[in-house]
């Protein structure tokens, strides 16, 4: 498994610190900064952060980071506790399997699709469990467009992230 080879020789305290910082920054960006500047809080900044960390740090770290990030969204939002954690965990695992080592556009497309899929799944599962039904209002384009922008901005950071944690 070449995809997980990035996880070898990781200096763990630094990886944990970096992941925690990235998650908190992504969380603040999505829930506070985006609404403050007039953009939709449905833009999945935090899930994009999880996907990139999954690629940079491997499956194990991706799962843990995704779980923690999703749980943070759950606890501070109106959704059901655990839904975000589950989606984040699966996203972290899935994105660790994406091969973007050389800049191939297919890799970026996968990251985009996984991130948008995770955000859509998070919204859909919460809607179904709370009985409010599926609703694709203004949030749809925020998820699709927002995850594309986030992917393009965050994906190039995977190399610096690896460099920091080694």
């Amino acid at each position: 498994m070449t995809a997980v080879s990035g996880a070898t020789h990781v200096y763990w305290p630094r990886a944990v610190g970096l992941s925690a910082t990235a998650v908190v920054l992504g969380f603040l960006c999505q829930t506070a900064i985006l609404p403050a500047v007039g953009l939709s809080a449905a833009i999945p900044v935090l899930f994009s952060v999880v996907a990139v960390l999954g690629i940079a740090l491997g499956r194990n770290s991706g799962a843990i980071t995704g779980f923690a990030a999703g749980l943070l969204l759950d606890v501070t939002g109106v959704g059901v506790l655990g839904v975000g954690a589950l989606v984040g965990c699966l996203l972290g695992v899935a994105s660790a399997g994406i091969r973007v080592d050389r800049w191939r556009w297919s890799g970026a497309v996968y990251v985009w699709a996984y991130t948008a899929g995770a955000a859509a799944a998070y919204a859909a599962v919460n809607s179904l469990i709370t009985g409010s039904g599926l609703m694709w209002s203004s949030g749809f384009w925020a998820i699709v467009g927002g995850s594309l922008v986030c992917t393009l901005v965050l994906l190039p950071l995977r190399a610096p992230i690896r460099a920091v944690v080694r």
Partner: protein
Amino acid sequence: MTRARNTVLVLIAASLALILWDLRASDTTVRDAVQEVTAPLQRTATAVFAPLGSWARQAQGFDDPAARAQTASQIVVAAPDGWNGAAGRVVAADISGGRAAVTIDVGSSDGVGIGNAVLAPGGLIGQISQVSQHAAMVLLVTDPQSTIGIRVLPSKEMGVVSGSGMGNELQVEVLNPAAQIAAGQQVRSLGSTAADGIPPDLLVGQITSIDPAPASGRAAQVRPVTSMTSLDTLLVLTGRR
């Protein structure tokens, strides 16, 4: 490999357990504790980045009670007499899956309680759904889980207004199938008997169109008093004086 797989399986099991626990218990202790930490961070981030956005914030020193009162003054004008209010500022938004809620930076230490009415300039925009010491979550009228008793003026017909997700108009259902309601009429709150609930006669919105073939009663679309995506300073009615 096995270790990674075990970690993933444990985390998935933990997520599923959390979902079941939350659906059964609905305990807010953990949420409150985390919001005590995240709300100040969100508030700082909002304050730093707000000048970049369209939310014109006149009051830079918002921690100053006088500045807060001044910003809230245009809401206070429309608020009913004899009620105590706490002015708060939106520090975060959650609009996942059509849901519509915002976090404000006042909480139980300012007298805010669950069920309190929340006003923006123009009228009622939601109700408090969660409270911690220094933060509270406002369930907006556009949230699908929000239902509020209303009267349509001038006929005073009673009904219920419910949300259909962020960015969509509200749905109103009037109890009387023979009610005479028309586009342009005002929808105002029915009022709750609780001393800290929604006072009567607050403007909720204006009817924009009537459903042609209602199943029971009369259904109509209602435009809320203000845009829910640009909320800034809000007034919480904490209770009768």
